[in-house]
């Protein structure tokens, strides 16, 4: 336990908690200015997220794609290659799963579901491989290519579901419903929480193990921290970056798969309200630490779920949560700067004290 404590970056956790706290305070001020009681607002938010079995289930349902895309981001960022293309990979992964589900309709669930997951992961991984190989072979900035490929994926799937794969059941910008055997079981009445949370937990544990306990995770980390050092130590840095990128894409693809198999039962033109971006935020908040990513994903999932109840209960717009999220991002971006100021202040105070005792 003491060993574990030493590894935890306590000062960062404090500054993250402070950032969140200040963001919530600013949120409270906004409510006050608008003549709403922040106390009522936040308690509605909290009970909306955790207050009942249904609410809790909804929060965790939201957590599934956030954890997967968050871990996807974390593993790529830690390896020094920046996959900002999670949203596109999610869309393609989701469509791939739906394709399996509407094509191989007679497969039993124990073959069909794994097949859909693997195929979705594969498609997501391949879609990340493309910018990955451009990066390591031709030094083309992966940040730019992945962002652009997001648009390509979203528009391409949107073409697919509106033309070749459009449902015949009315106009709803989606595919046909996938075969019954592919449906993941719902766990709580009315909520969309489904067995994908178990898949997700398993995947999260595997990724945690991979990142923190294995030589592969060590290689990823060293490449990300200092590529020259990794190369010098005999690590094939380009290969590691590619592998990390593909794993990252596969995770984001799987996030899409579970949206199809567990939530919508079909591919929809706008299947993700930006899960990959929120997942990235979770990863940034946790500094790419896999355990932290899960915790932050739950936190963000709770904010999202709670904000809807808050709007219903208090007529405080749910967009307020977006404001709070944005402020957290700002604080995290400024974290280093804040910390320096903080340390300096401390030293000044100390040296002043020392000066006084000298005199």
């Amino acid at each position: 336990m003491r060993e574990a404590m030493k590894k935890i970056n306590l000062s960062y956790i404090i500054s993250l908690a402070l950032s969140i706290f200040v963001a919530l305070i600013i949120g409270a001020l906004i409510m006050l200015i608008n003549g709403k009681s922040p106390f009522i607002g936040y308690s509605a938010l909290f009970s909306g997220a955790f207050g009942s079995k249904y609410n809790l289930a909804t929060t965790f349902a939201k957590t599934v794609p956030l954890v997967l895309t968050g871990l996807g981001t974390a593993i790529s960022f830690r390896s020094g290659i920046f996959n900002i293309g999670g949203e596109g990979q999610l869309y393609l992964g989701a469509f791939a799963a739906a394709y399996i589900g509407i094509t191989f309709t007679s497969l039993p669930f124990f073959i069909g579901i794994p097949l859909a997951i693997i195929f979705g992961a594969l498609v997501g991984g391949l879609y990340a491989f493309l910018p990955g190989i451009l990066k390591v072979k031709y030094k083309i900035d992966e940040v730019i290519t992945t962002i652009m490929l997001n648009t390509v994926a979203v528009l391409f799937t949107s073409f697919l579901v509106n033309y070749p794969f459009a449902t015949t059941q009315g106009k709803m910008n989606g595919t046909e419903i996938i075969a019954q055997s592919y449906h993941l079981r719902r766990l709580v009445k009315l909520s969309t929480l489904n067995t994908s949370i178990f898949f997700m937990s398993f995947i999260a544990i595997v990724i945690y193990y991979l990142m923190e306990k294995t030589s592969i995770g060590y290689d990823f980390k060293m490449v990300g921290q200092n590529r020259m050092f990794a190369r010098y130590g005999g690590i094939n840095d380009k290969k590691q970056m590619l592998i990390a990128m593909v794993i990252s894409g596969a995770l984001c693809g799987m996030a899409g798969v579970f949206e199809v198999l567990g939530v919508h039962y079909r591919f929809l033109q706008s299947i993700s309200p930006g899960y990959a971006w929120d997942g990235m935020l979770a990863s940034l908040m946790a500094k790419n630490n896999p355990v932290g990513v899960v915790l932050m994903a739950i936190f963000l999932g709770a904010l999202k779920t709670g904000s809807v109840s808050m709007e219903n209960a208090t007529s405080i717009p749910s967009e307020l949560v977006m404001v709070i999220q944005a402020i957290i991002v700002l604080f995290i971006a400024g974290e280093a700067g804040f910390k320096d100021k903080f340390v300096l202040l401390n030293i000044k105070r100390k040296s002043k004290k020392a000066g006084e005792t000298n005199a």
Partner: protein
Amino acid sequence: MAEKLIELKNISKQFPGVLANSNVNLTINKGEIHAIIGENGAGKTTLMNILYGLYEPTQGEIFIDGKKAVIKSPLDAIKQGIGMVHQHFMLLPSLSVAENVVLGSEPKKKKFFMDYDKAIEITKNLAQKYGFKVDPREKIEALSVGVQQRVEILKVLYRGADILILDEPTAVLTPQETDELFNVIRKLVSDMNKTVIIITHKLQEVLAISDRVSVMRQGKLIGTLPTQQADAKILTEMMVGKEVLFHDLHREKVSGEKVLEVKDIKAKDNRGLTVLNGVSFSLRAGEILGVAGVEGNGQSELVEVLTGLRNLEDGDYFINGKKITDVNPSNMRNLGISHVPEDRLTMGLSKEASLWENLLMGLQHKKPFVVKKIHLNKKKIFERTDNLIKEYDIRAIDRYMKVKKLSGGNMQKVVIAREFSFDSPILIIAQPTRGVDVGATEFIHNQIMRKRNEGAAILLVSAELDEIMRLSDRIITIYEGSITGEFKNKEVTKQTLGLYMTGKQNKLKGSEDN
């Protein structure tokens, strides 16, 4: 009684976590050459940066000509007649000498446009006045380091400096260039009434040039004394606080097999220019082969080629008599090469990673540190880490400490500990003690010699001739990507090496014939 020019009174400077200067009192007399020496991190440069206005002191006062001076920026310092030449030159390589000299206060025509002709004239006159040989029209990038340094000095003189601070001016110079620089400094002081403060950690230089010397240690000024009363032993004692003498290292007679050989190898630098132009040599077990050369003559690239980090364009590379076809870092490591790189921060370490992670590099896929193919065996890893920390005397809080929080000497010990712990038959070591204090230097030298006596084949690249001469059995000199000479150590003088390092060996041959 000499006239006091600058007085620093009770200067202290606090950086986050470090007290860089602590109650320093220093007097500089008019018209003297004042050396400030101390180990790396002793606070010399910080003190001078305060005088030059780059840092504001946490406390203390500066008096110039007896008047209290407020120096808040280099501009203030320049107004007071203080100029500084930094260790790393601050020149624009693509501009001409004249443009660099006048940069910041250019002669203008029509109040707006720079007057190039005037700039060239100014530079020419200035160079003439001080007896420098520089072509004002030449671009900086075409000049040798020694001449670039003179441009830096000209720049300072152009701004009207009477007090020149030179920070480690000889770090990048050959022995010949150093001599030339010293002549320039002497002339500035004797003919032009300038005052020179020179920061260095090389004792011989202090003794050769200065009038007075101040010794710093751990942010404190230990003492100032006239150079005539000082010698290397006294100064070293003052610098390190204990007697550390560079005695001869125990050298066992080892005669080993030829383990590494290169024939006519060629390589290109990052810009695609040929930097190794057919280099051949061989290396035996149980010997240290020193590579002496001024930095930038291909020795960095040589090390990179040998360790697989740079493409071998042409030529043959043999290890244990076998020709190596696939030269890459992982392959070279498997063939038994360990590498202490010249720059520990860009290549030798990951600053953000912990001590144990840094010490693990290279073993993360090897038993017993990894089990079941990928599972890191932390118990074994930590055991080894803790042993190395002890054995190599790495001063760290624990194995989780981030390497960036270590001092330079301890960082270097981490690299040495890791690479030496592999017990590789071949060690390729570049600049092993760069920026490392005297105590750690002694320790590292001892470790290198121990490895040699145990039978390792060692290639030592260093910019410090003293280091090469202390450790090597054989020495080769490299100049512009070619080997210019090979010598048995003890049979060659520093001056001779210096000539070979600068491609001027022909001069020597003439004089030897006499």
